[in-house]
């Protein structure tokens, strides 16, 4: 019961403060840009009359770039919109009138979490689905396992959300933002290291990449998604965020899901016991 009230109010807050609309507008802006890029590329194909096979590969690669940007955008939006929700209410004192109401504290936290999950689902569906629709409609390309890919991107956002919630029960908004963005940056770096190592066959680099993915598995979820979605040829480009050189295993996805639940559990536990 309390969960749903809190989820509703979280959603209302995002709508009232125009956070929701701004994020949607950014998503739509991205889709428009993506459409324009595809449009010009397809026009230039006409001029150079490339072979259909090459055209298909180029458009597929552009689609993957687009989806990668969607992934990044979704994760960053998740962190930015949720970074203040716990710590901000604790530091401003609005939590005092809420946490003294007859609902257990975990319902406050989980309710907010559910509210964000709903908004993120909408955002991912719009931008991810929109990108695929634009690419299919304009260039006739379609990724493999698109739905599975979307779910993985959603999972990555939920991971970022839960980690943001967890640190939000400890730190101020600014510190929380620095930590979570920093962690995601670390994962980002680790992903590239791992790819590079797959290429250079440096075992020590692999180890560094794996360890960073264990510390923060967000980027490795994307790499799994990219692997599942792309056509075999695009995946063979050596240095790219979609290269198949070093593919996170399904175990990594299991680890990331476990990580997400543990982060959420710690958030609930610490929020329950801390002084407000």
């Amino acid at each position, binding site marked *: *019961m*309390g969960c749903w*009230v809190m989820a509703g*109010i979280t959603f*209302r*807050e995002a709508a*009232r*403060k125009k956070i929701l609309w701004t994020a949607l507008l950014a998503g739509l802006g991205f889709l428009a840009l993506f459409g324009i890029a595809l449009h010009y590329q397809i026009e230039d194909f006409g001029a150079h009359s490339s072979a259909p096979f090459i055209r298909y590969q180029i458009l597929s690669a552009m689609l993957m770039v687009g989806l990668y940007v969607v992934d990044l955008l979704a994760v960053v939006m998740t962190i930015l919109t949720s970074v203040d929700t716990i710590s901000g209410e604790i530091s*401003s*004192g*609005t939590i*005092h*009138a*809420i*946490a*003294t*109401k*007859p*609902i*257990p504290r975990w319902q406050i936290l989980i309710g907010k979490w559910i509210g964000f999950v709903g908004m993120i689902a909408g955002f991912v569906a719009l931008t991810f689905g929109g990108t695929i629709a634009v690419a299919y409609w304009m260039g006739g390309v379609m990724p493999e396992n698109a739905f599975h890919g979307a779910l993985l991107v959603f999972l990555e956002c939920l991971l970022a959300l839960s980690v943001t919630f967890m640190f939000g029960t400890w730190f101020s908004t600014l510190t929380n933002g620095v930590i979570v963005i920093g962690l995601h940056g670390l994962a980002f770096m680790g992903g590239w290291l791992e790819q590079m190592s797959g290429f250079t066959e440096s075992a020590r680099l692999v180890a560094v990449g794996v360890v960073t993915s264990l510390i923060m598995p967000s980027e490795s979820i994307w790499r799994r998604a990219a692997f599942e979605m792309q056509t075999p040829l695009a995946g063979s480009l050596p240095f790219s965020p979609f290269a198949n050189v070093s593919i996170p295993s399904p175990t990594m996805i299991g680890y990331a899901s476990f990580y997400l639940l543990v982060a959420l559990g710690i958030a609930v536990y610490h929020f329950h*016991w801390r*002084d*407000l």
Partner: protein
Amino acid sequence: MRKEYGNKVAVRKLSLMVPLGSIFGFLGPNGAGKSTSIKMLLGLVKPTSGEAFVLGERAGDVAVRRKIGFLPEHFRFYDWLTPAELLRLHGRLCGMAAAKLRERIPVMLDLVGLTPHRDKRVHDFSKGMMQRIGLAQALIHEPEIIFLDEPTSGLDPMGRRLVRDVIRAQRERGATVFLNSHLLSEVEVTCDNVAFLKDGEVVAAKDLHALGEAEVHVVVRARQLSPQAIAGLAPWTTAASVEGEQLTMTARSSDVLPHVVRHLAASGADIYSLIPARASLEDLFVRIMGEDRGL
């Protein structure tokens, strides 16, 4: 209960009993630990040691919170809502049904005088308006105990009277009010009992209805006061002094005043006025707390 923040002791040894159905004033200088004590009673803050029971159940339990209303010290609420929406949110968090809320929200807005501002965002409210909506929020579910942390700190004179009336009305309803306040004149007229907190410890507790039976200061304006007449006041007073036409004395209780008047009249003095001043709560406060040594 005891509460430490790091090595800073916020509440040293709180031991307190609040009678049901009364208005209880919790007094003490800044930083004495009043707000921290309330937070422990509400479960917002976990005591370092000790425990408290509210309405027979452990403080902070969800079941007790159902029967509690709270106006926090810094009265910050979701300010992007309108007052009616804010009350609906708080009512729903208290588990109230939508139909009940529809009928209760206008009543509460009316009670705190915010009906003309019902369509504004709380964001645009002044401090006093914020406090009024906070009071409404604390009372929306007709709680059995209401904790008010400095409810009149930003209010205009009408607002203060409103809070006073609301508090009294809650007592009429059978509720208990736990009041933190620095405005002793208000406490004096509203509270039944008070406790004084100093450095995180309750140093005194008083029944305010009994306060009147204590010593009274009396100022008498009279002519023809003879020194013998003054000396003869000794049985009823602990101190007496004359300055011109003004006699200032401390009577043992207000019961002895008729004797004093009769004695003075019999000694040939012409009495123009006699004004008793109850030993005020402020005097008591200053006496208990000692001089301000800084914080």
